[in-house]
């Protein structure tokens, strides 16, 4: 196999003092290949956002490394970081807060070219801006408007256009459609799918909407309390999840089909997410897990192949597929 685009190894991000840190991301390892979309799912407080921010170096890593094209993001600074950021761009969740309201669209789009000279010569800014706007489904005349003149879906298109200005190889999408109306969501999802095909973009796609993640991803990674608890090709994750938490998560997604009402197995989790300051010993999910035994409190389960599902890695001592909760 060729070298992955992004290689994350034992990455941690802790907050607060060393005595009782919040272990937001704790010893996480994964890879993203060129042109591949990795979906990241998990509920509030699982560490998705902290992981994304650490990868973008919007905050320091506590330990581990994240190599993009072999260069460690976590140890980069100054000119090297500036260069890395060119290859790694982000689409934020809230298109109302992520665009400067005082900047006209043409400046919003061309600003990255001013910060990274040598990519697009100034004489071509206007033409390239129009090309980009059209590639995200906007029009040339939109270049002369301000963000407030756009709807939410259009703003998210602007955010995507801006993220593409520097021809990144990796696009990090942090809940890119969750602020949008359902009818508009599909437009933006289709746009991202098309762009990644056309540009061979790799994507880390973070979202809590499992149906959207399933639609767009090649592989999926599930986080719980700072750990990756299961990961694999999307069809393995969605048709044969082996981790009890993944099973509970999938079983909780309401099916848009009233005839299936009450017919699907629903696993209702007991209790709340434990505090990441003092996570449970061994497996972090054991306090809410119906399969937990004494080994779960003693030994942290490794993320490894435990079932016959293709490419599926599961961090559970009692990993076993349950056909009744498969989403597919």
């Amino acid at each position: 196999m060729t070298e992955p685009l992004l290689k994350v190894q034992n990455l941690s991000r802790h907050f607060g003092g060393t005595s009782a840190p919040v272990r937001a991301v704790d010893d996480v390892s994964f890879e993203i290949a060129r042109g591949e979309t990795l979906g990241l799912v998990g509920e509030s407080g699982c560490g998705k956002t902290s992981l994304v921010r650490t990868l973008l170096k919007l905050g320091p890593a506590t330990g581990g490394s994240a190599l993009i094209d072999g260069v460690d993001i976590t140890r980069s600074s100054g000119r090297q970081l500036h260069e890395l950021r060119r290859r790694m761009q982000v689409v934020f969740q809230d298109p109302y807060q992520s665009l400067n309201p005082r900047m006209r669209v043409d400046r919003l789009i061309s600003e990255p070219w001013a910060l990274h000279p040598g990519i697009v010569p100034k004489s071509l800014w206007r033409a390239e801006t129009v090309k980009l706007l059209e590639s995200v489904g906007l029009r040339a005349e939109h270049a002369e408007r301000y963000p407030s003149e756009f709807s939410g879906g259009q703003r998210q298109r602007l955010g995507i256009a801006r993220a593409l200005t520097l021809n990144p190889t990796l696009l990090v999408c942090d809940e890119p459609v969750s602020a949008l109306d359902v009818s508009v969501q599909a437009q933006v999802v289709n746009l991202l799918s098309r762009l990644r095909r056309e540009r061979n973009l790799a994507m880390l796609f973070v979202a809590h909407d499992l149906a959207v993640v399933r639609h767009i991803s090649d592989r999926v990674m599930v986080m719980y309390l700072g750990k990756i608890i299961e990961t694999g090709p999307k069809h393995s994750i969605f048709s044969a999840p082996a981790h009890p938490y993944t099973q509970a998560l999938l079983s909780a997604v309401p099916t848009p089909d009233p005839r299936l009402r009450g017919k699907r197995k629903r696993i209702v989790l007991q209790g709340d997410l434990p505090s990441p300051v003092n996570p449970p010993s061994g497996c972090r999910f054991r306090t809410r897990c119906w399969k937990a035994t004494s080994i779960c409190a003693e030994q942290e389960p490794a993320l490894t192949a435990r079932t016959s599902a293709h490419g599926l890695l599961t961090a559970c001592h009692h990993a076993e597929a349950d056909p009744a909760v498969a989403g597919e």
Partner: protein
Amino acid sequence: MALLEVNDLRVSFDTAAGRILALNGVSFSLNRGEVLALLGESGSGKSVTASAIMDLVPNPPGAIDHGSIRFDGSELLQLPRQERRDLCGDRIALIFQDALAALNPVYPVGWQIAEMFRIHGRTVQGGVEKAVIDLLTAIGIPDPERRAKQYPHEFSGGMRQRIMIAMAVALEPDVIIADEPTTALDVTIQAQVVDLLNAIRKRSDAGMIFITHDLGVVAELADRVAVMYAGRIVETASVFELFDDARHPYSVGLLASQPRMDTDEDELVPIPGSAPNPAALPSGCAFRTRCPRAEKLCAEVVPHLETVGPGREVACHFPVSPA
């Protein structure tokens, strides 16, 4: 006779962009024991409908310009303010989306639930304190005696939403209006809350108006659905009819634009464009600018809800043919 009947309701708001019509002739009815979903996107008028029923339209800038809301035989819009306020909370209850904002941060939750009994002058057998503990138990809060003395910030988001539900059902209302009660919650917690609401509706004979934009939740919970777009109801149908055989092009588009968990689709089928600016709605049918079936007539004449079958209404000049 229907328990709640809303007829030709029109609500407008003064905004910087001029007077906008938030509700432009909304009519529907709710029966006892029935769950009616109001399905629509932001700005479609779902929450304004709830506010109008609960007498919570801020005036100014808002005003109910026209229409009637009949509840159990009496016209709510004609009732003296105090009588109407007494009714709300007692016989018609509202569950807000944002439980943290709706709960008072400086009082224990038990006290706030008990307030429902005090304000509405209810006495309960065994005392209010016991009623509060029973309610907390019913909504699945462990250790209710201790938890009743705690403050909202000491609860998780899902628990706070369940406490809102406990307050809403405390006086056993006839109508429960739930305004996006699960939208801010994680999916596993959402499942808990939907199950709780389902259990409550089975136990009581109350009618429920469930406001949401989530088709999955509609499929799990609703008996009937009213689809809203730009301040109007564009289609009403039983939940089965809507999912099997939607007739309004907007409903059809909404269903088609959702990715599915059980099939692989190459491309999603979005509705083009975005919701119209309420200050500058298109003439005629407000959906026509995004509609694949629109013709000249749609720009000229507003389509009104017309009965197309038992309990089925569609507001469209060129509805999709029955499947």
